[in-house]
């Protein structure tokens, strides 16, 4: 695992992540997350729900892209449709595509020779993350690690801003989360490997996260919000 992991995992990557709380802002607004324990619960739920799904799709995209080039004939349409089907909330789909659009802009600039048009203008974030990971010489598991950690790091950072938590205390939470991220990434990479060899998309993780779907729906109905999601 090389420097590409740090490049794409850096929270300063200018791909729009800073403006997304992943449902945390709404959970805070409704009082569901109010201390470090409830934050930890929120992050674990997010990781093992949508995080596991995002990680598997990122791993598939990394495999589809290939180690040295983005395969324009890859199963991009299938991945897009399958992830849509696993994201029942329309605002959550929009958030995923907004972040995908921003990340694609960065990836196109970094690796302009690749046919990024194959992914569409607003691909799901996990899919373009996997493709970019491949281009940064990461394997499928590396892509899965990126996607898994991404689902907890963003909300954790948002919690520091919204609830005035001690950033060191939140880092302790994330440190405890790292082992879970690795576990999710292991399973995601394995699932992706199987599915990409037999094409049976139904075998990709399809964990639902109704609580997060609720957060996304309610957030989209708020008049004034600090975060885009």
């Amino acid at each position, binding site marked *: 695992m090389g420097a590409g992991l740090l490049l794409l995992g850096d929270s*300063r*990557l*200018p*791909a*729009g*992540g*800073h*403006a*997304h*709380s992943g449902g945390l802002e709404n959970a805070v607004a409704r009082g569901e997350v109010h201390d470090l324990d409830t934050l930890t619960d929120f992050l674990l739920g997010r990781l093992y729900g949508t995080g596991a799904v995002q990680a598997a799709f990122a791993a598939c995209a990394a495999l589809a892209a290939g180690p040295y080039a983005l395969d324009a004939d890859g199963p991009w349409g299938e991945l897009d449709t399958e992830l849509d089907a696993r994201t029942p909330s329309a605002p959550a789909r929009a958030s995923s595509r*907004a972040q995908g*659009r*921003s990340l694609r*802009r960065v990836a*196109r*600039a970094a690796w302009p020779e690749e046919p990024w048009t194959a992914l569409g203008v607003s691909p799901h974030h996990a899919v373009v993350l996997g493709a970019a990971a491949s281009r940064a010489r990461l394997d499928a598991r590396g892509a899965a690690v990126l996607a898994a950690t991404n689902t907890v790091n963003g909300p954790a950072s*948002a919690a520091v*801003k*919204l609830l005035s938590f001690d950033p060191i205390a939140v880092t302790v939470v994330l440190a405890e989360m790292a082992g879970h991220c690795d576990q999710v990434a292991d399973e995601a990479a394995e699932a992706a490997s199987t599915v990409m060899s037999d094409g049976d998309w139904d075998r990709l993780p399809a964990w639902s996260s109704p609580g997060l779907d609720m957060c996304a729906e309610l957030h989209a109905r708020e*008049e*004034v*919000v*600090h*975060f*885009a999601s």
Partner: protein
Amino acid sequence: MHRQGFPPVVPGSRPLRIGIGGPVGSGKTALVAALCRALAGRVSLAVVTNDIYTTEDADFLRAAGVLDPDRIAAVQTGCCPHTAVRDDISGNLDAVEDLEAAHADLELVVIESGGDNLTMTFSRGLADVQLFVIDVSGGDKVPRKGGPGVTRSDLLVVNKTDLAPHVGADLSVMARDAERMRPGTPVLFLSLRGEPGAAPVTDWVLAQLAAWREGNTVPVADAALGGGPGGGQPVDTPAAAG
């Protein structure tokens, strides 16, 4: 290898993007509204507003009747107004590109930042040209405090000059300090209360737009700015340098 932005900017090839930054309450939104009024019917424009006052600001512009609602876009900044216009401009770029795609006749996009402090600047990847708005009620020491917003903006606007006598601000001190902190770059004194049209700023914007349309890089110095204090409010200071 000569490195360029992404994508490389070709002056005139797309609408001009103007950034308006400045501290909370300095009059950014009022200035945007004034620009919209002054340019209505002359320039096809759209506005991107940033941050938690988004809804209120957008409503302000809509209520002023100066812009169709479909020409106003709102961006959330995740509690980091400066990040959204400087370090990670994704959300604003998306908004600008969507407006450009929706309005083929667009000539000018005004991007108003959320209120921040004197360190705020726009990335050159987002704004082709930028102005920074401060006001006299923050005290006449603000220009000499410096900060990238004051020293590196293409135009510094000192707003609410009508309040100067009431807050004990010496405009000549502000003008002298501003000239020292940003030699050779323009400063305009403005009172939107006295001159709702913000004529001097409008002239500056039109000068940038004219240069851009002709395929020139911006900012350009504007000779029209040398004529005296802005905002129709006589003040005993050299209002502009540049």
